[in-house]
């Protein structure tokens, strides 16, 4: 057991024993390699199940509006930004949550591993320093961790939580070789092809929406039936409208945690749309999602001198 896991368990046990919280949200070993599953620890026993490695890519903030009144949550940098946004949107009271910040070293993109294997099944995966060793049947593959990290993690500017009650220091946030945002094709038709191809994969299971802590509408516009804005069938147009609306509804709110991409069972990846929204919000309105609790969300207000470059003038 490494130092960070020991700290996590000690902290969880202490918070539960001192009755500061009823529940600690963390991760425990899941059914498959590289697949930790949420852990809902309510006792010292539960605390001892908690674990941490580079397969904790889900965003636990999605469980913060559950029935428990006082909750402690293990939060990576992106998770803490999601919590900031949820607090701004008054989803729960600040005093009811204890944020245990975990410096993040970047999470594995399981899809990248699958693609390298050409297979969705692998029997075993373990970390050996900066290498990930994956076994599928008789084949073993050694991959540098940096190559199979999520794009979001490779480009992450704040892997250490910016907002927390307790900050664990078992590991220093260290992300290998940051990449840059991959540019979209300059040609419009190529961009459409790319979007069309991603949207065509969608089976409309809504895993992306449901794992997203910020997609919490009581009734999603994709589910509304009076009127039916978006058809429930995975037709090209309906998939496209659904994905566009999701990107738009998360403009200025998405924290680029990558949970939706990880969640997709068929590998739809429209992160670039979310990144474009992030860039527009930054450049137009000077706003950074989840950075600070006292910054007003861009779409909750307006500016008198916002850029008007998109207006059709005559």
């Amino acid at each position, binding site marked *: 057991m490494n130092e960070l896991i020991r700290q996590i368990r000690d902290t969880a046990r202490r918070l539960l024993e001192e009755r500061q919280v009823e529940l600690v949200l963390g991760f425990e070993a899941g*059914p*498959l390699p590289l697949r930790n599953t949420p852990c809902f620890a309510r006792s010292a026993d539960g605390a001892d199940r908690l674990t941490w490695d580079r397969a904790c890519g889900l965003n636990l903030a999605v469980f913060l509006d559950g029935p428990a009144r006082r909750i402690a949550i293990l939060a990576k940098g992106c998770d803490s930004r999601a919590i900031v946004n949820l607090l701004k949107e008054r989803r729960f009271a600040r005093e009811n949550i204890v944020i245990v910040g975990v410096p993040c070293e970047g999470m594995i993109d399981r*899809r990248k591993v699958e693609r390298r294997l*050409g297979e969705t*099944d692998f029997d075993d995966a373990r970390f050996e320093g900066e290498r990930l060793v994956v076994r599928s049947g008789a084949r073993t593959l050694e991959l540098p961790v940096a190559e199979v990290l999520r794009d979001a993690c490779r480009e992450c500017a704040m892997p250490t939580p910016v907002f927390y009650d307790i900050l664990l220091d078992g590991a220093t946030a260290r992300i290998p070789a940051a990449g840059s945002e991959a540019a979209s094709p300059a040609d419009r038709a190529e961009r459409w092809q790319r979007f069309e191809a991603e949207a065509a994969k969608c089976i409309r299971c809504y895993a992306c929406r*449901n794992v997203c802590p910020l997609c919490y509408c009581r009734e999603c516009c994709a589910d509304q*039936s009076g009127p039916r804005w978006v058809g429930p*069938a995975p037709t090209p147009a309906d998939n496209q409208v659904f994905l566009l609306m999701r990107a738009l509804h998360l403009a200025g709110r998405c924290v680029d945690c990558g949970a939706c991409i990880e*969640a997709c069972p068929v590998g739809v990846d429209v992160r670039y749309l979310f990144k474009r929204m992030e860039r527009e919000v930054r450049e137009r309105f000077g706003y950074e999602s989840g950075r600070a609790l006292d910054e007003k969300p861009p779409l909750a207000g307006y500016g008198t001198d916002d850029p008007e470059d998109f207006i059709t003038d005559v």
Partner: protein
Amino acid sequence: MRRGTITREDLNELIRRWTAERKVIAPVRRDVVELSPVGSADEIAMDYSNTQLPTKRHFFRPSEVLLRFDLRAAPDRHVVEAESDADPTVLFGVRPCEARSHTLLDRVFLREPYCDPYYQQRRANTAVVVLGCTSAGPTCFCTSVGGGPNDHAGADLFLTEIEHGREAHAAIYLLDVVTERGASLLTGFDLPEADAGLIEHASRAAAELAATLKTIADLERIRTAAQTAFDDPVWQAICLSCVGCAACAFLCPTCHCFDIQDEVSGGRGRRVRNWDACSFAHFTLHASGHNPRPERHQRCRQRILHKFTWFPENFGAAACVGCGRCIRACPMGNDIRRWLEAIGKKV
């Protein structure tokens, strides 16, 4: 049942013949292994664990137009029923659990008096060539639900690799001709009889593989859960991290719930049947606003009991083939094997 042997080369020749006269859908390795129409045998992946998506979409479409209507058309053309697009097809190289799932779906869609014509036509026009398993994936549990690596249910032809061969084309397969339809695929092809030693060897290998698969909870006991554990807190306990998406249901080879909607624009439109899933909160939502399954644990319970209690009661078998896709697909890492184990302790 005739049992012969066939080399990969001869198999490729057969596939070439099939592609000339019908659609051939087979596993193809792109990013991962997917079922896809193929033009030649070279595209087909024969060394894979399982395909990302199951075969059910081939028979039971994610979205299917049932009829079109147009009030501006001539009165006798106001409503036009959609024809089934059921081209003659060979579903090649699918795993035994897939073929087994077809026999389960048949019990729903082909049961008189409500026989589904779209499904029926596609089933009637599709031959299934199964590739028996020589290894098991980490989520496989087919032997727990009545299947197995050598299960011939739903197969027209059944292939078992008996010699891997140093190069792909050198592989040799045992070929079982399971049905008449299977035999007709071999018309004009001289299939050499397999010798008893090979058959013996293949079935021993399959039995050995089956023995390595762990048996999950006792399904006979789970079946009684609707009576004995319906209100047990176990349901709340297992579904804590379920977020209510339909990744499990849409990737399940046997889940078959659907919803019928009219898409209308002006005086015309169409009636469409779309996949639906009991994990969605609005699945049971009434027009009145009442929802008989408002809580997440009730929806999880529905999914499990439908598969392991009510489907067996109505159709005589569990609605699960043990392919493990739901385990792999669950974004939260929920594992149906663990769920069943937990439920099994309560009944």
